[in-house]
């Protein structure tokens, strides 16, 4: 069964924003699975070791595949190196940006900051702007009019979602955004979540990024070679597919305007390579419920609270098969969503806890 409602307004300064604030959906109290303080303290503990190990592997793999690109440039042997370099640069940087932005990857703050800024550059993301947009995403996860990081809006634009795998749309958005910001102009939406005292820092960061891109273009022209651009900037196009494949599954097809991450977020079991690239963000319900827990402790957190969560999708393929018919149905009925079943051991969803119309849920 479905219901018809007003069209969603995804602007962060529009009608939905006003409604979310008025109804208490903005900055609301969210559902949390009960975890003892002792267990949570253990899970939250920070350590430099796992992230240093993973970052050394990451950097060595990036430099090694970059060397392969330079060495084999002009022959077909360059293709596997482009494949590896592209994914490391254009996809795994997203999880490094994410974890280091939370400050949970390393115990040592400056290590988080260094990797955060490198990864932000690789992703063409303004490190100041995106730190604030992600804070908003955690405060108001998939609250229409509040969350700045809703990947697929309703009704879904399937062409746009498909093109996301190529990175073209992101590239087309990110680079002009950085240039605009470098000229000191922040949009009203950006100003809605970046505090005034931080806005100048966002402009300075954008100027650094643009300066490096200008330098890269100049180097490519001077060398009469595509290699500088293939190594810096263009991987955002040809290497972004893994980030989109894993990242889209975080919330797509699930409920919006609810305050229970079990309803709007998805955990998916993934292969070890994808988990390395994604730094365990496949445990996404767990991450949203307890963002203090570092990526390397998420599997332990999952074991501790899975009795209270919907059954994870056993694979990415399974998750996409589950999502596809929901998206098709949302083309006609944008209120339609997938309501994931809870195990008998879980505390039930609380209808009165949020405003979602359960009659619109897919069974």
């Amino acid at each position, binding site marked *: 069964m479905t219901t018809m409602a007003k069209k969603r307004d995804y602007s962060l300064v529009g009608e939905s924003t006003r409604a979310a604030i008025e109804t208490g959906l903005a*900055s609301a109290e969210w559902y949390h699975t009960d975890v003892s303080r002792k267990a*949570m*303290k253990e899970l*939250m*503990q*920070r350590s430099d070791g796992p992230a240093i190990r993973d970052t050394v592997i990451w950097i060595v793999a990036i430099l090694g595949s970059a060397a392969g690109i330079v060495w084999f440039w002009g022959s077909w042997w360059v293709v596997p190196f482009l494949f590896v370099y592209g994914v490391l640069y254009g996809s795994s940087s997203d999880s490094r940006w994410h974890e280091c932005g*939370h*400050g*949970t990857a390393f*115990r040592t*703050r400056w290590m988080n900051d260094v990797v955060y800024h490198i990864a932000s550059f690789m992703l063409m993301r303004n490190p*100041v702007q995106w*730190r*604030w947009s992600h*804070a908003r995403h*955690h*405060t108001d996860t998939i609250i229409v009019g509040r969350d700045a990081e809703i990947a697929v809006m309703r009704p879904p634009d399937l062409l746009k979602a498909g093109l996301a795998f190529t990175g073209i749309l992101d590239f087309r958005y990110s680079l002009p955004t950085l240039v605009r910001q470098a000229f000191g102009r922040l949009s009203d939406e950006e100003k809605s979540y970046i*505090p005034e*005292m*931080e806005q100048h820092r966002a402009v300075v960061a954008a100027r650094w990024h643009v300066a490096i891109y200008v330098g890269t273009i100049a180097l490519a022209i001077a060398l009469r070679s595509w290699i500088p651009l293939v190594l810096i900037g263009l991987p955002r196009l040809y290497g972004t597919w893994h980030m989109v494949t894993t990242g889209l599954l975080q919330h797509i097809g699930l409920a919006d305007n609810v305050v229970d991450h079990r309803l709007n977020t998805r955990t998916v079991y993934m292969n070890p390579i994808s988990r390395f690239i994604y730094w365990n963000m496949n445990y996404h319900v767990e991450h949203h419920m*307890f*963002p*203090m827990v570092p990526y390397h402790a998420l599997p332990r957190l999952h074991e501790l609270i899975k009795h209270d969560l919907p059954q994870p999708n056993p694979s990415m393929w399974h998750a996409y098969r589950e999502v596809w018919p929901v998206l098709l149905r949302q083309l006609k009925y944008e209120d339609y969503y997938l309501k994931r079943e809870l195990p008998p051991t879980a505390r039930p969803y609380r209808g009165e806890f949020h405003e979602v119309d359960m009659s619109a849920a897919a069974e």
Partner: protein
Amino acid sequence: MAEWLEACAVDDVEEEDVIRFDHGGRSFAIYRSPDDEFFATDGFCTHEKAHLADGLVMDDIIECPKHNGRFNYKTGQAKGAPVCVNLKTYPVRIEAGKVMIEIG
């Protein structure tokens, strides 16, 4: 006039940890540092309304459980985005195994 309140017993707070203390409609956070000193701050993060007592104490830092904003709980200093406003701190003294805070 200064008002001293009994917040908790010394043993209620583990080393390098924090607990919550509510009084008169206000919420406070009581810390025990790794070198066994006690401190007190406002209980809510200055960024958004999250109880700091659910956060993580590391050395002299309290990290908010909601957005990982960090404060020095000894001085109240905000240590960077997403927290920009310092945390209010309160004097603490120990009397007969009790943690007393002056809320003024």
